């Protein structure tokens, strides 16, 4: 199946923004630490998508791909580290509630 590709910047941009808002909302509206991690992932999806779209629209596909490969590697390391911190919270407070991340003020 060959798919005809759109060339409009705004189409890509629209879906990038939708994914971005979705990820942010997911991160900010939850009280569960793991769900924040999922939101973070959605954010990264949106950015990855935008990079590829930018490469596609500007004819720099190879460069964009090279970047995305590196971004994915960074992404997975960040996810693992965040997961480690979440496990630390769980170990310490026996809870995944975000309240434990709001103790320091002022």
């Amino acid at each position: 199946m060959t798919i005809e590709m759109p060339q409009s910047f705004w189409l890509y941009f629209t879906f990038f923004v939708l994914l971005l808002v979705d990820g942010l909302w997911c991160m900010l509206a939850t009280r569960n630490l793991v769900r924040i991690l999922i939101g973070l992932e959605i954010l990264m999806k949106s950015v990855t998508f935008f990079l590829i779209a930018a490469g596609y629209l500007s004819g720099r596909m190879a460069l964009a791909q090279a970047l995305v490969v590196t971004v994915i590697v960074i992404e997975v390391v960040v996810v693992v580290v965040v997961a480690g911190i979440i496990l630390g919270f769980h170990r310490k407070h026996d809870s995944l509630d975000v309240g434990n991340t709001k103790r320091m003020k002022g």
Partner: protein
Amino acid sequence: MTPLLLILTIAVPAAAGLLVLLLPSRRAPWAPAVLAALACAFELALAIYAFPHDVAFAWSWMGFGAEFALKLSRFSAFILLGIATFSFLVTAYSAVSMAKASSSRRFHAWVLFTVALSAGAVLADNLILFLVFWEGLLLTLFAMIAAGKTRPFATAVKAFVIVGVTDLALMFGVMLTGHLAGTLSMSAIRLPLDGLGAVAFLLLMVGAMGKAGAMPFHSWIPDAAIDAPLPFMALLPGSLEKLLGIYFLARISLDLFVLTPESWVSPVLMGIGAATILLAVLMALVQKDYKKLLAYHAISQVGYMILGIGTALPVGIVGGLFHMLNNAIYKSSLFLSAGAVEKEAGTTDLRELGGLGRSMPITTLCFLIAAASISGVPPFNGFFSKELVYDGALERGWIFYAIALGGSFFTAASFLKLGHAAFFGKPTNAKRTVKEAPWPMLLPMIVLAGLCIVFGVANSLPLERLVQPVLGTAMEGAHGGTFAGFPTNMLLVGLTAGVLALAVANHAFGVHRTGKGIGAVDHIHHAPGLSSVYTLQATGVLDPYRMLVVVVGVASKGLYALDRAIDWVYSGLAAQSALAASWVLRRAHNGNVNRYVLWALAGAIAVVLAVLAVMGGGR
């Protein structure tokens, strides 16, 4: 005379200060004081040796016009001599008075640094270099007040904030001046006083006045008087800061800018001078503490100098500079006498003092000479410099003259009160046997009192050797080229004498009227002319003294409120609003990371929108 010697005047005290800090103070508690006195003696020798020379040199330094440039001119040699003399006398004195204080080491180190920085500020011929030394003095000021005894930290911070604010003005002024003149070399700058030039002048002026302690930048001096060590008061607010502040004011008025009587800046300066004279002296009049009274006079006397320089006439400028010199002499003598009294009698509260004249005759004598000098009694030095300032002020407007003369009246009145309460009358504190102060404390006082006489009787010496060369060619043609000798305007002398007599009469009457606890044996009580005033008062119809007391009292209280209001602006309003801002901001940081993320996103959106707006507008 090589550049090396100029550098030594800065480096020797600085090195001695470092050495003092490194000395093992436990083994030799006297060592810091001795070392300080020795270094200051060396400084004095250098200053005397360097006096007749003219040296200038510059090392290229930072690349944008800031050079390490020192210059010894007539004027700076004169001020340098003053700095060296006073620091030598004060260190000799503090060798005794501070010898046992635990803070002696730090105090002397800071004194030495102060001397080094002052010398640097006076010799600097580049505005940036000058600024560096000047700002360094801010640091030593803070440290010296903090070296005192009771709760001095608040005072230190207050002094720091006030002097800091004025130094900020100075910093702006330096930048603006450099910008306008296109050079930072002080001896190359000569700007007209109009437009931005006037702004630059006013900014620099604020800096100079902050150092000299003129109104409204005076607020810290009386507070420091209570808290800080007395040698400090004698050295910094008493002499060095006046020397430096007035030096800089004179430099900007005479050299850096063209101050003419026609310029609108001249009345501004005179107005500030006159206001400072009158307001501070009225404050002084109601003080009940020896040191605090002196501190307000330290402010008031600056007014005469600013008034004199502000006239922009040779006679006034010479008078102002001569007054600066005289004031430094008698004011440090007075502070030192206060120190002697505090050390021997254990207090400086005038209500608890009295009759010290018998037990401390030499201190009393020195005090009398210095007090007569500050009150402008002939033939002491203060008389001559004040007459010159009067002469200049009268030429510019009778109102300035009248205020200055009124200031003299109150000065005399307050020193009559001070001397009477402290040295005459009955000893109120009989339990304590008071002895004369030790010799090392007396000697500086005696030297200074002697100078009061010498500079008065032989006033051609300081005027022709020190002060008048500063004006250079401007002196020619005026008054036959010199202002030395007895004043020629006998009308003014007569008015001065009249005012002094009035002060004496007023004092005598006041003592008689209110004099409880103060002996009637004092000669002042039997002054002629008293009885008629007394009769008038006894009729009850008219009570001039009470009226005077009421008027002065109300005025003083009002001024005190004003004084506190200024104080409040510094330490209250500014600090409180800063704390409130801090509190609000801290409340906003509630620990919720979501909030921080939203801030960041809002910031990013704002930045992008700003960019779009600019790009859109650019098209």
